[in-house]
């Protein structure tokens, strides 16, 4: 890692700050200026003015919005995400983190399956280019992608739980066999996109000189496919992997509602409907931070994996 790359990384990380700052401003003002306010959310529709005044003073809602924003950011810097108006006794972070943990573990498992299937399918389709197998494979996965998750999970539950009676759907935590079905429903629609990307990537690699060289050396076809074609075609996949990480915030919403999983996507829907101001804000900020840092990490990983990027960054 040369000084060029280090400077590049520092620039990327520094750039993340104004991006996150503007996101926080937009969302904070949007939430505060939208109709309704946190006091209505806490007290319901009928309440006495006195009660409302006390609450407003307590949480600072009587101050101008920019003062509220300043206070919020000051608390945020100390790790305080505010209070949940939906679960009154809990702070926003107490509401969010346990559920983020559930969702991120499930989403991670789903991502592993998506990529584990999508990458080989893409390679297979690309190598079968020119036969009818290629469009048939891709269309099969596109067909699965086309079914909305809330319909797919109904089919899955009906078939596996009612018809075959092979699965139990009660929720006993993340690490249980009951989670196989929801994770599959989460993972399978994602395969098509990954397979298509991988297919295009493999096809672009197939024409490279080093593939010809490898074949000319008389290497086994298996070796050429695995260590020459697939390895190089995987490089652009880093972007796709990185960009699918922030999906854990709302990506599993319908799976969580269909299977009764206490995850963050369900919480975020409830928070939006309540509305639970500080929780929404915390979720959006968390999601955006994840996205911005995924981007930075992608760049850094590229720098390590691909020497051409490293040289380019140093030259810049």
């Amino acid at each position, binding site marked *: 890692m040369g000084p060029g790359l280090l400077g590049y990384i520092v620039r990327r990380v520094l750039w993340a700050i104004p991006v996150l700052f503007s*996101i926080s401003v937009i969302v904070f003002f949007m939430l505060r200026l939208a109709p*309704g306010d946190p006091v209505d959310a806490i007290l319901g529709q009928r309440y006495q003015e006195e009660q409302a005044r006390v609450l407003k003073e307590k949480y600072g809602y009587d101050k101008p919005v920019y003062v509220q924003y300043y206070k919020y950011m000051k608390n945020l810097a100390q790790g305080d995400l505010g209070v949940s108006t939906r679960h009154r006794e809990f702070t926003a972070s107490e509401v969010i983190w346990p559920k983020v943990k559930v969702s991120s573990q499930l989403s991670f498992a789903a991502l592993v399956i998506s990529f584990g299937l999508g990458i080989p399918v893409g390679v297979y389709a690309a190598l079968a280019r*020119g036969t009818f197998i290629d469009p048939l494979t891709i269309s099969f996965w596109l067909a699965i992608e086309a079914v909305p998750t809330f*319909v797919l999970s*109904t089919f899955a539950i009906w078939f596996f739980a009612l018809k075959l009676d092979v699965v139990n759907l009660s929720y006993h935590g993340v690490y249980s066999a009951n989670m196989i079905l929801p994770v599959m429903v989460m993972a399978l629609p994602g395969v098509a996109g990954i397979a298509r990307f991988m297919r295009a990537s493999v096809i672009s690699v197939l024409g490279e000189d080093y593939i*010809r060289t490898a074949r000319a050396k008389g290497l086994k076809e298996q070796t050429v496919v695995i260590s020459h074609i697939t390895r190089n075609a995987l490089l652009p996949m880093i972007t796709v992997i990185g960009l699918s990480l922030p999906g854990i915030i709302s990506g599993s919403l319908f799976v969580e509602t269909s299977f009764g999983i206490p995850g963050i996507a369900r919480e975020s829907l409830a928070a939006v409907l309540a*509305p639970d101001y500080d929780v929404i804000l915390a979720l*959006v900020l968390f999601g955006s931070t994840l996205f911005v840092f995924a981007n930075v990490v992608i760049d850094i990983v590229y720098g390590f994996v691909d020497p051409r990027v490293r040289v380019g960054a140093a030259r810049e």
Partner: protein
Amino acid sequence: MSGQRVSSEAASLLDVHSEAAVRPPPRFRTVRELLRKKLAFLAILYLSIFYVAGLAAPLVAPYGLNEQQLTVEARRQAPSSEHLFGTDALGRDMFTRVLYSARTTIFFTLAVVLTGGLVLGLGLGLLAGYRGGWVDLAIMRVGETLSGLPTLLLMLAITAAFRARISSWSFWLEDHTFLGADAKTFVKFAIITAAAVPFSWLGTSRIVRSQVLAIREQSYVTAAESMGASTSRILWRHILPGVMPLYLVGLSSGMAGIAGAEVALSYLGLGIDAPAASFGNLIGDTNGTRFFEQYPYLLIAAAGPVVLFFFSWNLLGDALVDVFDRRQNMRR
């Protein structure tokens, strides 16, 4: 640059042998191309039926959208010659409701594509690519900021926030415009469109910008510039035609996602709901494992048409990408 081109030309001369080895016999290639074209053809066929039937819904529909039959026998009927797709819990004809839902999907995608895709996506992409400098920087940074937000969550937040105002806005519209009783549906429609548009231009503008950057350096553009052609003329006559193919490819791949946003929001009860019809609330009314066990035809009737709609756009997008890639390769 030119050195690279020469070497790739030399490579393509050398390529003849290895190409023959990699490519399967032409017999299969024809089958594949036929199948590929057949799939794309079927997709186009289905989409044209969907669009014609959806747009002509008031003319084609065999029953009224909210014509109810509340007798026990009339409710949740299985498909028959009288009711092609059966009837729902209120005895309303499912086929009619599906047709009107198609109409909702068509209008929604059209509204989002025209505002977010065309005006913002194409317009900002052209501007960023051609102007460059701080305009480019500003547009791309705003795009980056927006794409950093969790989209579905924010769309939910926007719709939920505005829904509180639905009745006051729709009463005003009822009194002051020609919309009359449709005002409420119109307001709901406007809200979900407004929630979808900010997120719909990011991908397209990025594609358009990169295309513009490539085309801007072509000799015919610099020639037009040196002849003193105006910026708008250069954009319209010289750059836009080159950008269009890839833009359309991106659009057709993104179509299912745009339509899916409306279906998801309506499914959650935050988009279009009764008395108007949308695939989202149709599915919401017929979804559920027990319900599906008892009345499988209702969920299939509600979800089938829109699943095929998504599938067709995806197939079409995929086929277009392929055709476009091949053309690029041939040009090279």
